[in-house]
């Protein structure tokens, strides 16, 4: 394809590899690894989704029955809309908090180097360990949150955050936001620091207020990073498994069951591997649609703001 420009040079050693051959030698190991560990299981899941596989070795192909069941199931529709609500809520909170956090960390005040370090822990530690902390915070009888609410007389007796449908859902959102905010904050901070100072100085000389500079310089300049962070967060949130699983296992009464929890429960708790596989395939298709939409939006944004 493009090797012509290089290979026309008179080479001393004729045995030098062509560019494409060399490229594929470099990529092949990673490609093969992914093929065995991700692509093949994915293909296998696709096959399973057309079967009625359960725990035993015997199964038969049932065509698209699993998918038809999903399409007709009211419960599944609820799960899908709950997942999107969960994702929308969590991603918006992550972006808003991340933007606020990055702006604060970017402010030239003493101590900001320390603040930058203190933001890291939720991101760096294993998710499962952070969730043990949240589990205790949400505990009604012994947890800090319920204790504080009681001493402020907001609730009159202990409040179990994870025991009621609505509060369990929002508690899980908060924990998910907690896990995701540090990364968003750091990436947005990084983008803010990449914005040229000349722009700000020019605006400042013209008497533009700080808020005006933020709105008309910072935001447009870091827009591509905001867009890519929102997609990454959306994917992480959509896929987030350990957070919900450790806090509530999808309960109470399915109020925190997202699609990923639903497919895990169907496959592992109920041992309906075929039906679980069909749910996985639906998830994969949705994620695929997502990233196409993302690439499209990113393209528009990049063009609109004229950054490289």
């Amino acid at each position, binding site marked *: 394809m493009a090797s012509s420009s290089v290979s026309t040079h008179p*080479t001393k050693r004729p045995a030098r590899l062509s560019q494409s051959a*060399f490229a594929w030698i470099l990529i092949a190991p*990673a490609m093969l690894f992914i093929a065995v560990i991700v692509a093949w299981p994915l293909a296998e899941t696709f096959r399973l989704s057309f079967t009625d596989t359960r725990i035993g070795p015997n199964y038969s192909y049932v065509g698209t029955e699993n998918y038809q069941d999903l399409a007709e199931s009211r419960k599944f529709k609820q799960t899908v809309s709950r997942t999107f609500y969960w994702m929308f809520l969590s991603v918006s909170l992550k972006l808003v908090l991340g933007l606020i956090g990055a702006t604060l960390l970017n402010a030239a*005040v003493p101590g900001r180097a320390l603040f930058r370090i203190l933001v890291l822990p939720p991101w760096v530690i294993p998710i499962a360990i952070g969730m043990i902390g949240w589990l205790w915070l949400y505990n009604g009888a*012994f947890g800090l949150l319920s204790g504080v609410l009681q*001493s402020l007389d907001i609730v009159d007796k202990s409040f179990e955050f994870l025991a009621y449908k609505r509060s369990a859902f929002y508690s899980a959102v908060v924990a998910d936001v907690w896990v995701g905010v540090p990364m968003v904050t750091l990436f947005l901070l990084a983008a803010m620091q990449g914005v040229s100072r000349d722009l700000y100085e020019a605006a400042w000389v013209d008497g533009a207020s700080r808020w005006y500079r933020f709105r008309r310089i910072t935001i447009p300049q870091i827009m591509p990073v905001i867009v890519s962070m929102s997609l990454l967060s959306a994917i992480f949130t959509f896929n987030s498994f350990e957070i919900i699983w450790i806090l509530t296992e999808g309960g109470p009464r399915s109020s925190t069951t997202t699609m*990923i929890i639903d497919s895990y429960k169907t*496959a592992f708790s109920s041992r309906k591997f075929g039906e679980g596989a069909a749910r996985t395939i639906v998830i994969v298709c949705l994620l695929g649609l997502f*990233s196409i939409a993302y690439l499209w939006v990113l393209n528009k944004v990049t063009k609109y703001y004229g950054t490289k």
Partner: protein
Amino acid sequence: MMDRYSLWQVIGIYIAMAMFLIFLLLPFFEMFMASLRPLEHLFRSPYQFWSDDFSFKAYSDMWETVPLLGRYIWNSIFISTAVTAITLVFVVPASYAYARLDFPFKNISLSIFLGVNMFTGAVLLIPLYRVMSTLGILNTYWAMIVPGVAFLIPTGIWLLRSYLEKIPVELEEAAFMDGASRMYTLRRVVLPLAVPGLVVVGIAVFIGAYAQQFLFAITFNQTREYQPLPAGLFEFIGYQSVTWNEMMAAALTGVLPVMIIFLFLQKYLVAGLTAGAVKE
């Protein structure tokens, strides 16, 4: 001049910062408080914020309740380090190809890699279990390392590619003109220049491996001696009672080594992310 804040603005920034940090650090504070309380105090109601029976006893008792605790902490770090090293071996050549070379199916194959980024292991557990068992690596360290590597290769390629693109191409061209082979150029010219980038990508991969080992551990590994810390912590949930205070103490002690390493490395991480994020 432009960066000057009025006194009230500075106070406002600090208050907002404090609220932001309280949210992010609250679970750690709660875990620390719980680890100081004697077990019978933990279940005392109504809630008491402060009392005089706080002690560090849990921090010494935990090693007896779960004798393998030290091993779990070590396993966690070992698994993540192995995942990082192996991932880099796959990622370095591949990202060099994407940064520098032109070849058929370049964009398609790159999108395939990035597509893998969209999954977590959670959706593929059933068939993955079969793959692990076919490879004969269930209940070994490899059962946790191999899937970790697979799901982190794409992130690594994505990050490292943007670094390598910034290394001036002239050096490679010079080596090339002198008749150096492609592999020699990559090893002796590009790699040494890419060390700062490798550090950042290494840190990012390590975080990913460290944060996500729980799921693979509880699904693919039954050998107690190989369990990483997040899975090992569940041993504090005994038949009779859960020693919550010791569990909290163990969790905090277990992540301490990694947190300390991060204290030293965070400068590179933030600087590296700056470079990576502005790029695209």
